């Protein structure tokens, strides 16, 4: 097997078709993870220890076991569970599987953001007689979320690189197209190289952008502390 530039040029448009599916799936999984992340934060703030403890361990369990196995669980095992089992299409299974996995990471980001809000802010909102909803909506979250934006951005890039796992349950995105092409013409290296290049093309500039965002936020905080 030798490297062929003809094959390389030929597969670019084929793989390109899968690029949008990969990007779309990344965004869908990410939105799910962003929203579901609040669920864990909420559960960890219920003022009853056993519930706290239970959900902390469930999150830890999901975070430290392989997303690939979780994907298989949702796609292959879920339909076989009596009563609650339903057959999911690969897209929905991927969004649920990767979304839930990464929600345990986003929840940690939210938690660190919430913990970084000054204690005086909580006390002040209690003193001002704000309701719980008002306190979160107007005081805590507006301060807790913006500093975490670079971290959340990093997770978007990490998730983008985990999305090809979905090809194992039959989502026809870049990696799947590359493997199909390989199986058909017995040319694997060229299509896989194209896939890798597309990943690099999207993730490297995004990483640079997030690096700049990080610097910007840090600078803002530096300024704040300097003028205090």
């Amino acid at each position, binding site marked *: 097997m030798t490297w062929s530039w003809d094959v390389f040029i030929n597969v670019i448009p084929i793989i390109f078709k899968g690029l949008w599916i990969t990007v779309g799936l990344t965004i869908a999984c990410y939105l799910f993870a962003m929203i579901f992340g609040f669920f864990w934060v909420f559960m960890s703030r219920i003022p009853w220890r056993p519930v706290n403890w239970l959900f902390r361990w469930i999150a830890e369990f999901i975070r430290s*076991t392989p997303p690939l*196995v979780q994907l298989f669980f949702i796609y292959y095992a879920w339909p076989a569970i009596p009563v609650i089992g339903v057959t999911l299409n690969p897209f929905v299974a991927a969004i649920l599987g990767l979304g839930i996995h990464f929600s345990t990471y986003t929840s940690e980001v939210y938690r660190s953001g919430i913990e970084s809000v000054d204690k005086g802010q909580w006390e002040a909102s209690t003193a001002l007689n704000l309701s719980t909803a008002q306190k979160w909506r107007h005081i805590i979250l507006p301060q807790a979320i913006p500093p975490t934006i670079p971290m959340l951005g990093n997770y978007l890039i990490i998730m983008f690189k985990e999305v*090809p796992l979905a090809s*194992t349950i039959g989502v026809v995105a870049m990696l799947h197209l590359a493997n199909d092409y390989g199986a058909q013409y017995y040319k694997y290296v060229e299509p896989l190289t194209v896939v890798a290049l597309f*990943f690099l093309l999207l993730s490297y500039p995004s990483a640079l952008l997030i690096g700049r965002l990080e610097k910007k936020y840090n600078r803002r905080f530096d300024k704040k502390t300097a003028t205090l």
Partner: protein
Amino acid sequence: MAITEITLMLMRGIKVTLIVLVLSIILSSLIALIAGLSRVYHNKLLTGFTGFYVEIFRGTSLIVQLFWFSYALPGLFNIHLGSDIWVAVLAISLNYGAYMSEIVRGAILSVPQGQTEASIALNLTRFQRMRHIIVPQAIRMMLPEYGNYLIQILKATSLVSLIGLTDLLYYGNIYRSTHLTEAPTVYMIILLLYFLLALPLIGFTRKMEKVAKKGVVHG
């Protein structure tokens, strides 16, 4: 009983999972140390080369790299490593070595400048300075992040079944394909086994977080 039967079946694969895990941890740590040190070394060529390596491997996806290596090594470069285990170990190690080299670099750069100046004043050679002053202090700072990456490597070992290695997940998939109704039990046991393997790593990470915080003077 089904559970014992499934567990016995899975036990046949745990050896491969553990071998890949241990070898990947060793090799990726070595790569991370070398690449991390190269990036802070004052040599443009070396820094440029390792920077290129790190960006390539961090910018593409591990699963793509794994497939790429398993086809390109024997096909394109005619390199035969004897066993697919080595292909998997190489792909995982190069990938996580790139990520972890960033924590090595970050930790070394975060050692206060005064330490370098003091060791120059004490007339230590550049090697002695790294070996006795900078690295021992940097290692303590990188340990919690390192622990986190060990858990990531454990999770990554589940991918090796995709290139045909007979690991935990491989035997699980075989069992599932013949006992469709038992799929929930099979995957739940696999997840629990991975979690059991992760527990010591989680404990290590928590402990190191405490170690890294203890007795550090910031300035």
